[in-house]
């Protein structure tokens, strides 16, 4: 269980001016829930993830995982960034093993597990290749394997499919769901895509523009396993419309810029 208790996060610019990113966020994420966070750019979604990861610490309030205060990085956590963030000088296999190498936990079993994992996402033939030889979708699959290999109990994903084309995006999203259903864990998934959020999650948090606050908390009552034809389901429609109204209610569509962050998939 991940808990945010009245969390404020204020950054300061180079000139020392305060920039509030999160304001009074209180949130409980039960164990093994798939939670998505949507909201306009700069609403503190990434900050939320980094607070859970222990990469940042809150200005006010506190964050805890399983009742333990987060005051630094933890070993049972995986992070997938928007860019694949692979080491260009390491093979695909070494990239997947990298977290274990840092934590000095590489064993022959973990090497086998890494190979198995790569096979699961269709990259069995690529384990000795270098990231530059892979497509963007393949690179992001490697990044997902890397985040999952040490069986973290929490998986944090910061717009992981943002840089991919629509088809690859759907494919990897379904792969992610399959893996998550086989190895349940708490997932916090930040995205710009409302339909992606609804399709993947048990629950969607909608945030306000800066400083980010929790604007709405929407439960998604869609049966699992999910597929991409669910977009005709009335529950899917209800959720996406509710979220869209919430976001546009806060920031009316006056310009063209707003459309950019509300992609429907």
């Amino acid at each position: 269980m991940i808990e945010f208790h009245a969390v404020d996060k204020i950054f300061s610019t180079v000139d020392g001016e305060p920039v509030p990113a999160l304001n009074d966020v209180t949130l409980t994420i039960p164990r093994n829930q798939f939670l998505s966070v949507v909201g306009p750019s700069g609403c503190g979604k990434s900050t939320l993830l980094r607070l859970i990861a222990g990469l940042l610490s809150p200005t006010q309030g506190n964050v805890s995982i399983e009742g333990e205060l987060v005051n630094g990085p933890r070993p049972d956590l995986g992070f997938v960034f928007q860019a694949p963030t692979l080491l260009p000088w390491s093979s695909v296999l070494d990239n997947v093993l990298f977290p274990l190498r840092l934590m000095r936990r590489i064993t022959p079993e973990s090497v086998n597990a890494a190979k198995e994992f790569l096979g699961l996402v269709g990259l069995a033939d690529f384990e000795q290749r270098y990231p530059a030889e892979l497509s963007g979708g393949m690179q992001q699959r490697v990044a997902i394997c890397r985040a999952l290999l040490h069986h973290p109990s929490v998986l944090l994903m910061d717009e992981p499919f943002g840089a991919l084309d629509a088809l690859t995006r759907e494919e990897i999203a379904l792969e992610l769901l399959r893996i998550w259903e086989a190895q349940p864990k708490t997932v916090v998934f930040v995205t710009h895509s409302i339909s992606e959020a609804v399709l993947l999650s048990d629950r969607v948090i909608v945030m306000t523009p800066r400083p980010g606050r929790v604007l709405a908390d929407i439960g998604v009552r869609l049966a699992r396993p999910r597929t991409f034809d669910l977009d005709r389901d009335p529950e899917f429609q209800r959720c996406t419309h509710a979220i869209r109204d919430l976001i546009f209610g806060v920031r009316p569509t006056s310009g063209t810029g707003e459309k950019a962050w509300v992609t429907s998939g």
Partner: protein
Amino acid sequence: MGHFRLRRSTILPLAVLLGLLLVWEVAVRVFRIPVYLLPAPSEIWRETAAIPQRTIENTVATLETVLLGFAVSVLVSLPIAVMIAYSRWFAEAVYPLLVFTQSIPKVALAPILVVAIGANELPRVIVTFLVAFFPLVISAATGLLATPKELCELGRCHMASWWQELAYIRFPYAVPYVFSGVKVAITLAVVGAVVGEFVAADRGLGYMITSSAAYFRTPLAYGAMVLLSLMGIVLFQVVVVIEKVFFPWSVGIAQHDQRAG
């Protein structure tokens, strides 16, 4: 087509070089230019090859100074670059000093060093070091600081110590930058060594140039100059090969950047 262009790109400059040497040779003979003013290429070759042992000794002596000075500059510059990358205080305190050492004319410094340290190998190595280490510090620090924030966050997420972050993430990331600095530094090291030898030396190609010129043995001075440029080219190519063999990804990234840019 690509094969043909590769051959053309080697043959063309060679042909131009040979043509220029031929023009030089013919001009010197036709206009009867005195040998102490401008020796013909054939004369340069004859005079230099006439004393093979001394030429080789001098070349080896200069090479020693170059490699020693270069090694010292690598050993000194990398820790400085790491400290610049990791501490803003250190960077702010040391950057102006670095620039200051760069603005000292090394030719002016060499005789002063000889007075202070004596006419041995040390002042030559110090001058070589001072010439070569600046581009190394700058390129290595730039590379260490250019490491994407997310790669470092990935390391921190998995509880990397600062040492692991340096060894596994920042340093490998900086390798292409370091190599571009090394390429500049190794060529400058040759210049530094010669400057040192001009001021105080009893051997080396720089010494060969000053002593030959003093006795109007111009062909030998030219020969030493040619050897110096060859040394620069060979050392540069050695660096290129080392990069290709041991850090192939670095070369790939450089090529990628070139295509992109």
